[in-house]
Protein backbone atom coordinates (compact mmCIF):
# COMPACT_ATOMS: atom_id res chain seq x y z
CA UNK A 1 0.00 0.00 0.00
CA UNK A 2 1.50 3.38 -0.96
CA UNK A 3 2.27 6.07 1.62
CA UNK A 4 2.72 3.54 4.40
CA UNK A 5 6.53 3.35 4.67
CA UNK A 6 8.03 3.72 8.10
CA UNK A 7 10.03 6.87 8.70
CA UNK A 8 13.17 6.08 10.65
CA UNK A 9 16.74 7.24 10.95
CA UNK A 10 17.81 4.57 8.49
CA UNK A 11 14.91 5.42 6.15
CA UNK A 12 14.27 9.16 6.56
CA UNK A 13 11.83 11.19 4.50
CA UNK A 14 12.05 14.83 3.47
CA UNK A 15 10.12 18.06 3.23
CA UNK A 16 10.91 20.79 0.75
CA UNK A 17 9.32 24.24 0.93
CA UNK A 18 9.28 26.53 -2.08
CA UNK A 19 8.63 30.07 -0.93
CA UNK A 20 7.62 32.89 -3.25
CA UNK A 21 9.80 35.89 -2.33
CA UNK A 22 8.55 38.22 -5.07
CA UNK A 23 7.87 41.91 -4.40
CA UNK A 24 4.14 41.41 -3.90
CA UNK A 25 4.82 39.22 -0.87
CA UNK A 26 5.58 42.52 0.90
CA UNK A 27 1.85 43.37 0.82
CA UNK A 28 -0.40 42.65 3.77
CA UNK A 29 -2.66 39.64 4.24
CA UNK A 30 -6.23 40.65 3.65
CA UNK A 31 -7.40 39.33 7.00
CA UNK A 32 -4.30 40.33 8.88
CA UNK A 33 -3.27 43.50 7.17
CA UNK A 34 -0.81 44.39 9.91
CA UNK A 35 1.45 41.58 8.85
CA UNK A 36 3.09 41.31 5.44
CA UNK A 37 2.57 38.06 3.58
CA UNK A 38 6.33 37.45 3.59
CA UNK A 39 6.42 37.88 7.37
CA UNK A 40 3.43 35.63 7.97
CA UNK A 41 4.88 32.90 5.78
CA UNK A 42 8.31 33.22 7.46
CA UNK A 43 6.69 32.88 10.89
CA UNK A 44 4.70 29.86 9.71
CA UNK A 45 7.79 28.13 8.27
CA UNK A 46 9.91 28.90 11.34
CA UNK A 47 7.16 27.59 13.61
CA UNK A 48 6.80 24.48 11.46
CA UNK A 49 10.56 23.81 11.62
CA UNK A 50 10.42 24.30 15.37
CA UNK A 51 7.54 21.83 15.73
CA UNK A 52 9.26 19.30 13.49
CA UNK A 53 12.46 19.54 15.54
CA UNK A 54 10.50 19.06 18.76
CA UNK A 55 8.63 16.11 17.29
CA UNK A 56 11.92 14.44 16.34
CA UNK A 57 13.59 15.27 19.68
CA UNK A 58 14.30 12.49 22.13
CA UNK A 59 16.25 12.55 25.37
CA UNK A 60 19.48 11.73 23.55
CA UNK A 61 19.12 14.44 20.88
CA UNK A 62 17.19 15.00 17.67
CA UNK A 63 16.65 11.94 15.49
CA UNK A 64 17.08 12.42 11.78
CA UNK A 65 13.66 11.26 10.66
CA UNK A 66 13.58 14.08 8.07
CA UNK A 67 15.76 16.19 5.85
CA UNK A 68 14.30 19.61 5.18
CA UNK A 69 14.97 22.21 2.50
CA UNK A 70 13.65 25.74 2.03
CA UNK A 71 14.04 27.29 -1.42
CA UNK A 72 13.18 30.94 -1.90
CA UNK A 73 12.32 32.34 -5.33
CA UNK A 74 12.24 36.05 -6.14
CA UNK A 75 15.24 38.09 -7.22
CA UNK A 76 17.24 34.89 -6.87
CA UNK A 77 16.40 31.21 -6.58
CA UNK A 78 18.11 29.11 -3.92
CA UNK A 79 18.36 28.03 -0.33
CA UNK A 80 16.56 30.44 1.97
CA UNK A 81 18.18 29.32 5.20
CA UNK A 82 20.02 31.97 7.19
CA UNK A 83 22.85 31.72 9.72
CA UNK A 84 25.26 28.82 9.52
CA UNK A 85 22.89 26.90 7.20
CA UNK A 86 23.07 29.63 4.54
CA UNK A 87 23.39 28.08 1.10
CA UNK A 88 22.52 24.55 2.31
CA UNK A 89 19.79 22.66 0.45
CA UNK A 90 18.47 19.55 2.19
CA UNK A 91 19.48 19.60 5.83
CA UNK A 92 19.03 16.78 8.39
CA UNK A 93 16.59 17.88 11.10
CA UNK A 94 19.21 17.44 13.86
CA UNK A 95 21.42 20.02 12.16
CA UNK A 96 18.46 22.36 11.81
CA UNK A 97 17.81 21.94 15.55
CA UNK A 98 21.32 22.97 16.41
CA UNK A 99 21.70 25.77 13.87
CA UNK A 100 18.98 28.42 14.13
CA UNK A 101 20.24 31.75 12.76
CA UNK A 102 19.07 33.29 16.04
CA UNK A 103 16.58 32.68 18.82
CA UNK A 104 14.03 35.41 19.51
CA UNK A 105 12.15 35.76 22.74
CA UNK A 106 8.43 36.20 22.22
CA UNK A 107 5.54 36.34 24.63
CA UNK A 108 2.43 34.24 24.55
CA UNK A 109 -0.67 34.31 26.71
CA UNK A 110 -1.15 31.27 28.91
CA UNK A 111 -3.73 30.20 31.45
CA UNK A 112 -2.71 31.37 34.93
CA UNK A 113 -4.80 28.63 36.51
CA UNK A 114 -7.07 31.18 38.21
CA UNK A 115 -9.29 32.31 35.38
CA UNK A 116 -6.83 34.84 34.00
CA UNK A 117 -4.04 35.05 31.46
CA UNK A 118 -0.32 35.25 32.01
CA UNK A 119 2.37 36.52 29.65
CA UNK A 120 4.88 33.71 29.19
CA UNK A 121 8.22 34.26 27.47
CA UNK A 122 9.03 31.58 24.93
CA UNK A 123 12.06 31.00 22.78
CA UNK A 124 11.30 31.22 19.06
CA UNK A 125 14.14 30.01 16.82
CA UNK A 126 14.55 31.70 13.44
CA UNK A 127 16.03 29.90 10.44
CA UNK A 128 14.31 31.78 7.65
CA UNK A 129 13.82 35.56 7.23
CA UNK A 130 11.06 37.27 5.25
CA UNK A 131 12.11 38.55 1.79
CA UNK A 132 9.97 40.35 -0.80
CA UNK A 133 11.82 41.37 -3.95
CA UNK A 134 11.72 40.77 -7.68
CA UNK A 135 9.59 38.50 -9.88
CA UNK A 136 8.18 34.99 -9.46
CA UNK A 137 10.59 32.56 -11.16
CA UNK A 138 8.54 29.49 -10.26
CA UNK A 139 9.87 27.31 -13.09
CA UNK A 140 13.45 27.73 -11.92
CA UNK A 141 12.37 26.95 -8.35
CA UNK A 142 10.65 23.74 -9.45
CA UNK A 143 13.61 22.76 -11.58
CA UNK A 144 15.88 23.08 -8.54
CA UNK A 145 13.34 21.20 -6.44
CA UNK A 146 13.28 18.34 -8.93
CA UNK A 147 17.08 17.97 -8.75
CA UNK A 148 17.09 18.00 -4.95
CA UNK A 149 14.22 15.53 -4.63
CA UNK A 150 15.63 13.24 -7.32
CA UNK A 151 18.91 13.14 -5.45
CA UNK A 152 17.18 12.43 -2.13
CA UNK A 153 15.06 9.63 -3.56
CA UNK A 154 18.12 8.09 -5.26
CA UNK A 155 19.78 7.93 -1.86
CA UNK A 156 16.63 6.70 -0.08
CA UNK A 157 14.71 4.68 -2.68
CA UNK A 158 12.30 3.12 -0.15
CA UNK A 159 11.54 6.32 1.75
CA UNK A 160 8.12 7.67 2.64
CA UNK A 161 7.62 9.95 -0.40
CA UNK A 162 8.96 13.50 -0.09
CA UNK A 163 6.41 16.26 0.45
CA UNK A 164 6.95 19.50 -1.47
CA UNK A 165 4.96 22.59 -0.47
CA UNK A 166 4.89 25.58 -2.76
CA UNK A 167 3.62 28.85 -1.24
CA UNK A 168 2.98 31.67 -3.70
CA UNK A 169 0.85 34.76 -4.18
CA UNK A 170 1.13 35.23 -7.92
CA UNK A 171 1.66 33.90 -11.39
CA UNK A 172 4.98 32.49 -12.50
CA UNK A 173 7.06 35.07 -14.36
CA UNK A 174 9.40 32.63 -16.10
CA UNK A 175 6.86 30.60 -18.03
CA UNK A 176 4.24 28.01 -17.30
CA UNK A 177 5.29 25.79 -14.37
CA UNK A 178 3.07 22.90 -15.49
CA UNK A 179 5.82 20.71 -16.90
CA UNK A 180 8.23 21.44 -14.05
CA UNK A 181 5.53 20.56 -11.49
CA UNK A 182 4.67 17.32 -13.26
CA UNK A 183 8.35 16.38 -13.57
CA UNK A 184 8.65 16.84 -9.83
CA UNK A 185 5.59 14.90 -8.77
CA UNK A 186 6.46 12.10 -11.22
CA UNK A 187 9.45 11.22 -9.02
CA UNK A 188 8.66 8.23 -6.88
CA UNK A 189 10.08 6.03 -4.18
CA UNK A 190 8.92 2.44 -3.81
CA UNK A 191 6.24 3.82 -1.45
CA UNK A 192 4.66 6.27 -3.87
CA UNK A 193 5.00 9.51 -5.78
CA UNK A 194 6.23 12.83 -4.44
CA UNK A 195 3.37 14.75 -2.85
CA UNK A 196 3.02 18.33 -4.10
CA UNK A 197 1.03 21.06 -2.36
CA UNK A 198 0.27 24.37 -4.06
CA UNK A 199 -0.80 27.00 -1.54
CA UNK A 200 -1.92 30.25 -3.10
CA UNK A 201 -2.18 33.32 -0.89
CA UNK A 202 -4.92 35.83 -1.29
CA UNK A 203 -4.40 38.93 -3.40
CA UNK A 204 -8.04 39.88 -3.47
CA UNK A 205 -9.71 41.19 -0.33
CA UNK A 206 -13.13 40.10 -1.61
CA UNK A 207 -12.23 36.57 -2.61
CA UNK A 208 -13.20 33.78 -0.23
CA UNK A 209 -10.68 31.08 0.59
CA UNK A 210 -11.06 27.67 -1.01
CA UNK A 211 -9.41 24.69 0.65
CA UNK A 212 -8.53 21.27 -0.79
CA UNK A 213 -11.08 21.09 -3.62
CA UNK A 214 -11.68 17.78 -5.39
CA UNK A 215 -12.50 19.27 -8.78
CA UNK A 216 -11.58 22.34 -10.79
CA UNK A 217 -15.18 23.31 -11.46
CA UNK A 218 -15.39 26.13 -8.97
CA UNK A 219 -11.95 27.55 -9.69
CA UNK A 220 -12.01 31.13 -10.99
CA UNK A 221 -9.31 31.09 -13.68
CA UNK A 222 -6.88 29.01 -15.73
CA UNK A 223 -3.94 29.69 -13.44
CA UNK A 224 -5.81 28.37 -10.40
CA UNK A 225 -6.77 25.31 -12.46
CA UNK A 226 -3.13 24.80 -13.40
CA UNK A 227 -2.01 24.82 -9.75
CA UNK A 228 -4.93 22.58 -8.74
CA UNK A 229 -4.26 20.09 -11.47
CA UNK A 230 -0.56 19.82 -10.57
CA UNK A 231 -1.25 19.35 -6.84
CA UNK A 232 -1.34 15.80 -5.47
CA UNK A 233 -4.38 14.04 -4.03
CA UNK A 234 -4.15 14.02 -0.25
CA UNK A 235 -3.25 10.73 1.39
CA UNK A 236 -5.66 9.03 3.78
CA UNK A 237 -3.58 10.17 6.74
CA UNK A 238 -3.51 13.76 5.48
CA UNK A 239 -7.29 13.70 5.13
CA UNK A 240 -7.56 12.52 8.72
CA UNK A 241 -5.39 15.44 9.86
CA UNK A 242 -7.56 17.75 7.71
CA UNK A 243 -10.63 16.39 9.49
CA UNK A 244 -9.07 17.44 12.81
CA UNK A 245 -8.95 20.95 11.37
CA UNK A 246 -12.63 20.73 10.49
CA UNK A 247 -12.33 20.01 6.76
CA UNK A 248 -14.60 17.38 5.33
CA UNK A 249 -12.76 16.03 2.28
CA UNK A 250 -13.17 13.36 -0.36
CA UNK A 251 -10.74 10.88 -1.92
CA UNK A 252 -10.16 13.33 -4.74
CA UNK A 253 -9.27 16.32 -2.55
CA UNK A 254 -5.97 17.83 -3.55
CA UNK A 255 -3.19 19.67 -1.76
CA UNK A 256 -4.34 23.00 -3.12
CA UNK A 257 -5.66 26.12 -1.42
CA UNK A 258 -6.70 29.37 -3.03
CA UNK A 259 -7.06 32.87 -1.57
CA UNK A 260 -5.55 31.56 1.62
CA UNK A 261 -5.18 33.62 4.76
CA UNK A 262 -2.47 32.88 7.29
CA UNK A 263 -4.67 30.51 9.31
CA UNK A 264 -5.39 28.38 6.25
CA UNK A 265 -1.68 28.35 5.33
CA UNK A 266 -0.79 27.09 8.81
CA UNK A 267 -3.52 24.44 8.63
CA UNK A 268 -2.33 23.31 5.21
CA UNK A 269 1.27 23.11 6.43
CA UNK A 270 0.15 20.93 9.33
CA UNK A 271 -1.85 18.67 7.02
CA UNK A 272 1.10 18.33 4.66
CA UNK A 273 3.80 17.75 7.24
CA UNK A 274 2.26 15.99 10.25
CA UNK A 275 4.49 12.94 10.62
CA UNK A 276 2.96 9.50 10.86
CA UNK A 277 4.62 6.16 11.32
CA UNK A 278 7.80 7.45 13.00
CA UNK A 279 10.00 4.58 14.19
Amino acid sequence: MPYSAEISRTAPSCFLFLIDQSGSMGDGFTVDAGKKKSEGVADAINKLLQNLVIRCAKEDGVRDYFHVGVIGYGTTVGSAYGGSLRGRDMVPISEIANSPARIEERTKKTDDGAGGLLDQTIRFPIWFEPVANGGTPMCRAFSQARNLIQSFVSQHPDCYPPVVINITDGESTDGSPTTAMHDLSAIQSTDGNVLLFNLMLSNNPNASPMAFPDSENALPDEYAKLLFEAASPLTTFMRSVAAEHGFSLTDGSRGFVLNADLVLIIQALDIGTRPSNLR
Partner: protein
Amino acid sequence: MHIISEIFWLQKRGSAESEYEDAFWPARSFDETCERFTLAIADGATESSFSSIWAKQLARSYVRDGWDRDDSFRSSLAKRQRLWTKIVSRKPLPWYAEQKLEQGAFAAVLGLTIVDQSGSSGSWAVFASGDCCLVQIRNDEIFRSCPLSSSDGFNNSPVLLATSPSRNIAAIAEIVRQEGIWQSGDVFYLMTDALAAWFFRQAEQGAKPWEILLNIGLEESTFHEFVRAEQESARMRNDDVTLYRVDIL
Protein backbone atom coordinates in the same frame (compact mmCIF):
# COMPACT_ATOMS: atom_id res chain seq x y z
CA MET B 1 0.31 -21.98 43.28
CA HIS B 2 3.40 -22.73 41.24
CA ILE B 3 4.29 -19.90 38.86
CA ILE B 4 6.78 -19.97 36.04
CA SER B 5 7.18 -16.56 34.46
CA GLU B 6 9.48 -15.60 31.64
CA ILE B 7 10.21 -12.25 30.11
CA PHE B 8 11.19 -11.63 26.48
CA TRP B 9 11.89 -8.24 24.95
CA LEU B 10 13.43 -6.67 21.88
CA GLN B 11 13.98 -3.11 20.73
CA LYS B 12 12.52 -1.97 17.42
CA ARG B 13 14.41 -2.80 14.25
CA GLY B 14 16.99 -0.13 13.48
CA SER B 15 17.26 1.02 17.09
CA ALA B 16 19.94 0.39 19.67
CA GLU B 17 19.21 -1.80 22.67
CA SER B 18 19.51 1.30 24.86
CA GLU B 19 16.63 2.88 22.92
CA TYR B 20 14.12 0.22 24.02
CA GLU B 21 11.17 2.16 25.51
CA ASP B 22 9.00 -0.67 26.79
CA ALA B 23 9.40 -1.76 30.39
CA PHE B 24 8.54 -4.70 32.61
CA TRP B 25 8.57 -5.58 36.28
CA PRO B 26 9.72 -7.78 37.97
CA ALA B 27 12.90 -7.63 35.95
CA ARG B 28 13.66 -11.34 36.24
CA SER B 29 11.96 -14.60 35.46
CA PHE B 30 10.42 -16.68 38.26
CA ASP B 31 9.96 -20.36 39.00
CA GLU B 32 8.50 -20.63 42.46
CA THR B 33 5.51 -21.29 44.64
CA CYS B 34 3.70 -18.27 46.03
CA GLU B 35 0.25 -17.08 47.15
CA ARG B 36 0.23 -13.84 45.21
CA PHE B 37 2.09 -12.85 42.07
CA THR B 38 2.11 -9.34 40.60
CA LEU B 39 3.70 -8.22 37.37
CA ALA B 40 3.41 -5.42 34.80
CA ILE B 41 4.54 -4.34 31.37
CA ALA B 42 4.53 -0.83 29.93
CA ASP B 43 5.11 0.81 26.57
CA GLY B 44 6.63 4.31 26.38
CA ALA B 45 5.39 6.41 23.46
CA THR B 46 7.93 6.85 20.67
CA GLU B 47 6.90 10.45 20.09
CA SER B 48 7.55 11.64 23.62
CA SER B 49 10.95 12.02 25.25
CA PHE B 50 12.07 10.32 28.43
CA SER B 51 9.19 7.90 27.89
CA SER B 52 11.30 4.85 28.77
CA ILE B 53 11.81 6.31 32.25
CA TRP B 54 8.06 6.87 32.53
CA ALA B 55 7.26 3.34 31.34
CA LYS B 56 9.64 1.91 33.96
CA GLN B 57 8.04 4.06 36.65
CA LEU B 58 4.58 2.81 35.77
CA ALA B 59 5.49 -0.88 35.58
CA ARG B 60 7.33 -0.75 38.88
CA SER B 61 4.72 1.26 40.68
CA TYR B 62 1.93 -1.15 39.71
CA VAL B 63 3.90 -3.95 41.34
CA ARG B 64 5.32 -2.04 44.29
CA ASP B 65 2.60 0.45 45.19
CA GLY B 66 -0.45 -1.74 44.58
CA TRP B 67 -3.01 -0.19 42.25
CA ASP B 68 -5.89 -2.43 43.28
CA ARG B 69 -7.76 0.53 44.77
CA ASP B 70 -8.43 3.78 42.97
CA ASP B 71 -7.03 5.97 45.75
CA SER B 72 -3.80 3.98 45.95
CA PHE B 73 -3.44 4.23 42.17
CA ARG B 74 -3.96 8.00 42.17
CA SER B 75 -1.48 8.69 44.96
CA SER B 76 1.06 6.34 43.37
CA LEU B 77 0.61 8.06 40.00
CA ALA B 78 1.15 11.51 41.54
CA LYS B 79 4.29 10.28 43.31
CA ARG B 80 5.68 8.79 40.10
CA GLN B 81 4.90 11.97 38.15
CA ARG B 82 6.92 14.00 40.65
CA LEU B 83 9.75 11.48 40.51
CA TRP B 84 9.83 11.56 36.71
CA THR B 85 10.01 15.35 36.71
CA LYS B 86 12.86 15.25 39.21
CA ILE B 87 14.82 12.71 37.16
CA VAL B 88 14.46 14.52 33.83
CA SER B 89 15.19 17.98 35.27
CA ARG B 90 18.61 17.05 36.56
CA LYS B 91 20.64 18.59 33.74
CA PRO B 92 20.26 21.64 31.49
CA LEU B 93 18.75 20.84 28.11
CA PRO B 94 18.94 22.43 24.64
CA TRP B 95 15.94 24.53 23.54
CA TYR B 96 14.17 21.72 21.70
CA ALA B 97 14.56 19.19 24.51
CA GLU B 98 13.24 21.76 26.97
CA GLN B 99 10.16 22.42 24.82
CA LYS B 100 9.63 18.71 24.22
CA LEU B 101 9.80 18.12 27.95
CA GLU B 102 6.90 20.53 28.47
CA GLN B 103 4.72 18.06 26.56
CA GLY B 104 5.62 15.34 29.08
CA ALA B 105 5.93 11.62 28.47
CA PHE B 106 3.24 9.04 27.77
CA ALA B 107 3.05 5.29 28.24
CA ALA B 108 0.63 2.40 28.16
CA VAL B 109 0.67 0.04 31.14
CA LEU B 110 -0.82 -3.36 31.91
CA GLY B 111 -0.61 -4.91 35.35
CA LEU B 112 -1.73 -8.35 36.45
CA THR B 113 -2.20 -9.69 39.97
CA ILE B 114 -2.73 -13.42 40.43
CA VAL B 115 -3.97 -14.68 43.80
CA ASP B 116 -4.01 -18.29 44.95
CA GLN B 117 -7.18 -19.61 46.54
CA SER B 118 -6.95 -23.37 46.57
CA GLY B 119 -3.55 -24.26 45.21
CA SER B 120 -5.00 -25.22 41.86
CA SER B 121 -7.28 -22.25 41.19
CA GLY B 122 -7.72 -18.65 42.19
CA SER B 123 -8.49 -15.16 40.98
CA TRP B 124 -6.75 -12.58 38.89
CA ALA B 125 -7.20 -8.85 38.42
CA VAL B 126 -5.90 -6.71 35.59
CA PHE B 127 -5.30 -2.97 35.30
CA ALA B 128 -4.94 -1.59 31.77
CA SER B 129 -4.33 1.87 30.38
CA GLY B 130 -3.59 1.99 26.67
CA ASP B 131 -3.12 -0.92 24.29
CA CYS B 132 -0.88 -3.43 26.06
CA CYS B 133 -2.90 -6.65 26.22
CA LEU B 134 -3.45 -9.67 28.40
CA VAL B 135 -4.53 -13.02 26.95
CA GLN B 136 -5.46 -16.03 29.08
CA ILE B 137 -5.15 -19.40 27.35
CA ARG B 138 -7.03 -22.42 28.65
CA ASN B 139 -7.41 -25.80 26.95
CA ASP B 140 -5.65 -24.59 23.84
CA GLU B 141 -8.06 -21.68 23.31
CA ILE B 142 -8.25 -17.98 24.09
CA PHE B 143 -10.27 -17.96 27.31
CA ARG B 144 -10.11 -14.22 28.13
CA SER B 145 -8.38 -11.15 26.71
CA CYS B 146 -8.18 -7.61 27.96
CA PRO B 147 -8.46 -4.68 27.25
CA LEU B 148 -8.60 -5.50 23.51
CA SER B 149 -9.67 -8.70 21.84
CA SER B 150 -9.20 -8.17 18.10
CA SER B 151 -6.56 -6.80 15.75
CA ASP B 152 -8.76 -3.94 14.55
CA GLY B 153 -8.78 -2.46 18.05
CA PHE B 154 -5.24 -1.14 17.60
CA ASN B 155 -4.43 2.27 16.18
CA ASN B 156 -1.54 4.70 16.35
CA SER B 157 -3.08 6.96 18.93
CA PRO B 158 -4.14 5.08 22.04
CA VAL B 159 -4.95 7.14 25.12
CA LEU B 160 -1.91 6.81 27.38
CA LEU B 161 -1.00 7.73 30.94
CA ALA B 162 0.91 11.02 30.99
CA THR B 163 3.47 12.57 33.28
CA SER B 164 1.40 15.74 33.28
CA PRO B 165 -1.72 15.51 35.49
CA SER B 166 -3.64 17.90 33.23
CA ARG B 167 -3.18 15.55 30.27
CA ASN B 168 -4.48 12.51 32.13
CA ILE B 169 -8.20 13.15 32.30
CA ALA B 170 -9.09 11.02 29.28
CA ALA B 171 -6.59 8.29 30.15
CA ILE B 172 -7.88 7.91 33.70
CA ALA B 173 -11.46 7.84 32.47
CA GLU B 174 -10.58 5.00 30.10
CA ILE B 175 -8.70 2.76 32.52
CA VAL B 176 -9.88 -0.82 32.29
CA ARG B 177 -10.06 -3.03 35.36
CA GLN B 178 -11.19 -6.63 34.98
CA GLU B 179 -11.17 -9.71 37.13
CA GLY B 180 -11.21 -13.40 36.38
CA ILE B 181 -10.55 -16.91 37.57
CA TRP B 182 -7.52 -19.07 36.83
CA GLN B 183 -6.98 -22.78 37.13
CA SER B 184 -3.85 -24.92 36.95
CA GLY B 185 -2.59 -25.23 33.40
CA ASP B 186 -3.65 -21.74 32.35
CA VAL B 187 -1.09 -19.56 30.60
CA PHE B 188 -1.16 -15.75 30.62
CA TYR B 189 0.49 -13.63 27.96
CA LEU B 190 1.13 -9.95 28.62
CA MET B 191 2.09 -8.23 25.37
CA THR B 192 2.88 -4.72 24.20
CA ASP B 193 0.81 -3.52 21.26
CA ALA B 194 2.72 -4.70 18.19
CA LEU B 195 2.94 -8.27 19.48
CA ALA B 196 -0.66 -8.22 20.74
CA ALA B 197 -1.94 -7.01 17.35
CA TRP B 198 0.05 -9.76 15.65
CA PHE B 199 -1.34 -12.31 18.13
CA PHE B 200 -4.98 -11.40 17.48
CA ARG B 201 -4.46 -11.24 13.72
CA GLN B 202 -2.97 -14.73 13.71
CA ALA B 203 -5.85 -16.05 15.82
CA GLU B 204 -8.39 -14.39 13.50
CA GLN B 205 -6.78 -16.26 10.62
CA GLY B 206 -7.26 -19.59 12.39
CA ALA B 207 -3.73 -20.00 13.70
CA LYS B 208 -2.71 -20.64 17.28
CA PRO B 209 -0.21 -17.88 18.04
CA TRP B 210 0.02 -19.01 21.68
CA GLU B 211 1.66 -22.21 20.47
CA ILE B 212 4.32 -20.19 18.68
CA LEU B 213 4.92 -18.08 21.78
CA LEU B 214 4.91 -21.15 24.01
CA ASN B 215 7.44 -22.89 21.81
CA ILE B 216 9.82 -19.99 21.79
CA GLY B 217 11.42 -21.63 24.80
CA LEU B 218 14.08 -20.32 27.03
CA GLU B 219 16.51 -19.02 24.46
CA GLU B 220 16.21 -15.27 24.09
CA SER B 221 17.79 -15.38 20.65
CA THR B 222 14.87 -17.46 19.47
CA PHE B 223 12.48 -14.69 20.44
CA HIS B 224 14.69 -12.19 18.61
CA GLU B 225 14.68 -14.34 15.51
CA PHE B 226 10.92 -14.83 15.65
CA VAL B 227 10.18 -11.10 16.07
CA ARG B 228 12.61 -9.99 13.38
CA ALA B 229 11.22 -12.53 10.93
CA GLU B 230 7.65 -11.36 11.56
CA GLN B 231 8.67 -7.69 11.28
CA GLU B 232 10.60 -8.23 8.08
CA SER B 233 7.64 -9.98 6.52
CA ALA B 234 5.43 -7.05 7.68
CA ARG B 235 3.20 -9.39 9.67
CA MET B 236 4.28 -7.51 12.78
CA ARG B 237 4.65 -3.74 13.05
CA ASN B 238 8.19 -2.56 13.69
CA ASP B 239 8.08 -1.53 17.32
CA ASP B 240 9.62 -2.39 20.66
CA VAL B 241 8.22 -5.78 21.63
CA THR B 242 7.71 -7.18 25.11
CA LEU B 243 6.23 -10.50 26.17
CA TYR B 244 5.68 -11.63 29.74
CA ARG B 245 4.54 -15.25 29.79
CA VAL B 246 3.14 -16.73 32.97
CA ASP B 247 2.46 -20.44 33.36
CA ILE B 248 0.49 -21.62 36.36
CA LEU B 249 1.31 -25.25 36.96
